[in-house]
């Protein structure tokens, strides 16, 4: 029972990391129709920046610096490279963003080396939360809470602010929104930067839990694509549902039959793609991309 509860909690934390990466992937796809294989790179950059800042000034500043820096990077990337690819086919988008992911990964390797880095032992990380026989690191619970708060904020931004409105309307009819005076370009930059910032923040916040290596970005990106596909490409709540589902599935399989833990999530994705390609909560119009 204790083992199961801990597995469920682990699954929740893992799932929420996936959600944090997948939310950016999915809003960028849903609003800009951009398939971004470089999204994992935002996570990795956030993790490294977070680590460097945390070593100097502590965890708090790290959680501010990482998303800001990653968002700036994303804006530059968007302006310089990605804009022309917005209206191209998915294949071209995959190619260019895959290339960017490669460049980022290798740049990180050049700067920080190939070795896996660990977080400095901070007192905040050592505390545990105990409820009866169940003991669980407090930081992980705090992390889960943080991601949930962030998700609510993102949802509010997309649903309740003018920017969110312009972006959602711009997806339907770009020309019309521009004619009405909405700045679709600025709004899409903001969406892109927002998605990146969330991934960067997740990287910085999650690296005390999971170690950091140059390949970390891609290693998290691939399951995050599983999450997005299972939930439905472009769907916010799909990413949330998919992330929790995949996180728990992976964690529980690890408990029951460890060798299958990684296979099972891809099996899950394959089944969803074949039976319901638009994903659990996706709209059916996007299948023929």
């Amino acid at each position: 029972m204790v083992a199961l509860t801990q597995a469920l909690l682990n699954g929740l934390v893992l799932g929420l990391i996936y959600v944090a990466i997948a939310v950016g992937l999915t809003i960028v796809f849903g609003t800009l129709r951009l398939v971004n294989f470089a999204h994992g790179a935002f996570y990795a950059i956030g993790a490294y920046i977070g680590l460097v800042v945390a070593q100097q000034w502590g965890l708090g500043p790290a959680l501010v610096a990482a998303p800001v820096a990653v968002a700036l990077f994303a804006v530059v990337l968007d302006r310089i490279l990605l804009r022309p690819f917005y209206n191209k086919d998915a294949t071209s988008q995959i190619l260019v963003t895959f290339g960017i992911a490669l460049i980022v990964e290798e740049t990180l390797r050049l700067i920080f080396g190939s070795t896996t880095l660990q977080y400095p032992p901070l007192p905040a990380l050592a505390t545990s939360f105990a409820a009866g026989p169940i003991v669980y690191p407090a930081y992980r619970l705090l992390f889960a809470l943080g991601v949930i708060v962030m998700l609510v904020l993102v949802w509010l931004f997309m649903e309740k602010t003018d920017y969110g409105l312009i972006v959602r309307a711009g997806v339907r009819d770009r020309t019309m929104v521009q004619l009405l005076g909405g700045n679709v370009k600025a709004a899409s930059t903001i969406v892109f930067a927002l998605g990146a910032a969330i991934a960067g923040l997740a990287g910085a916040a999650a690296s005390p839990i999971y170690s950091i290596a140059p390949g970390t970005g891609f290693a998290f990106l691939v399951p995050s694509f599983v999450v997005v596909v299972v939930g439905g490409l472009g769907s916010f709540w799909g990413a949330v549902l998919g992330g929790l589902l995949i996180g728990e599935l992976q964690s529980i399989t690890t408990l029951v039959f460890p060798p299958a833990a990684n296979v099972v999530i891809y099996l899950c994705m394959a089944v969803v793609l074949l039976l319901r390609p638009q994903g659990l909560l996706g709209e059916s119009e996007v299948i023929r991309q």
Partner: protein
Amino acid sequence: MNPSTGSGQAAGVRFALLTAIGLALFPFAFHAIDGYGGLATQILIMSIASIGFNLLLGYTGLLSYGHAMFYGGGGYVAALLLIRLMPQHPNLWLAVLGATLAATVLALLVGALAVRLYGIYFALLTLAFAQMIFFVVEQSQDWTNGDDGLQNFPAALLPLGPYSIDLGTPLPALPLGAFGNLSDIKLWYVFAALVLFGVMVGVRALTRSQFGEVLTAIRENEERSALIGFNAPAYRLAAFAISGALTGLAGALRALYDGSVPIDAVGIDRSGSFVIYTIVGGVQTLLGPVIGTGLIMYLESVLSARIDYWRLVEGVVFVAVVVFLPAGIVGTVTKTVQERTQKSRALLTESLRARSGGAQAGPERLSK
């Protein structure tokens, strides 16, 4: 206008001849720029996989992000056939054929499910299957040796009539100055060159056949091709199977040549490498994947010895090609040359017309 059958055949013969000459001269020219025979052999083998990959991406318009499952699958099956079934009499034909067959079956199974999807969904489904295969291989310790991969399997001999050929035998010694020595080349290179030659001629014929034309038609406009009466999924499945078979063949050859199969052979980076090779060289061209494979593998070999960030260079080259030369190196060169000839042809026609004062001087007269 299409060339007549006669000149089409002539072009085919010319293509075969030029390919044969290119393959025969390649290792020696390669030596002059610091390449070596072993790398030349590996480039030829990997080119087979890239050609297979391009058959899908270039001619069918489907980006697979999981071709490592066929490549690595071919490698593991070849190695396992040698280790488990013929440790006493390791037969290269049987190992390669068995592995290619296995890759074809795998491609048919995955393809039957995948060809119903497009774009990102197709890429992700192939990725999902490749990841499943990767983790199954990694976990099947007893068979695959897990993360360590398979090594030390019996060196396969190539039975040919009454002979049993060891492909590790070098050619006779013959100094060639700056181009090295004939004995730098092992029989393996000759064998790989023959296979690649066959694959290139075969794929060229395939893409120019009705099958190839239908594939292109489906890629450009599936609904229209379906309305004409072509069964698009069946054509795509056939292309997927051939693509998987060629990639599996390459994986088997590489395993037998290297004498080892690393776990990376089924990994995601391997799938990505076929994407890079093909795009850099030129998608939708026959020669592109070969040139791209050669260039990137050569850069890797030369640069990784000198600098430790060669993969960064690779990434920059790849992105530069995607952004500035979407047709790839070969595609861009071909296009430029074609435009030039057309332009000069037009100029020539005009001047001839002006001289003869009439309109009789057509391109037909000029082509001879």
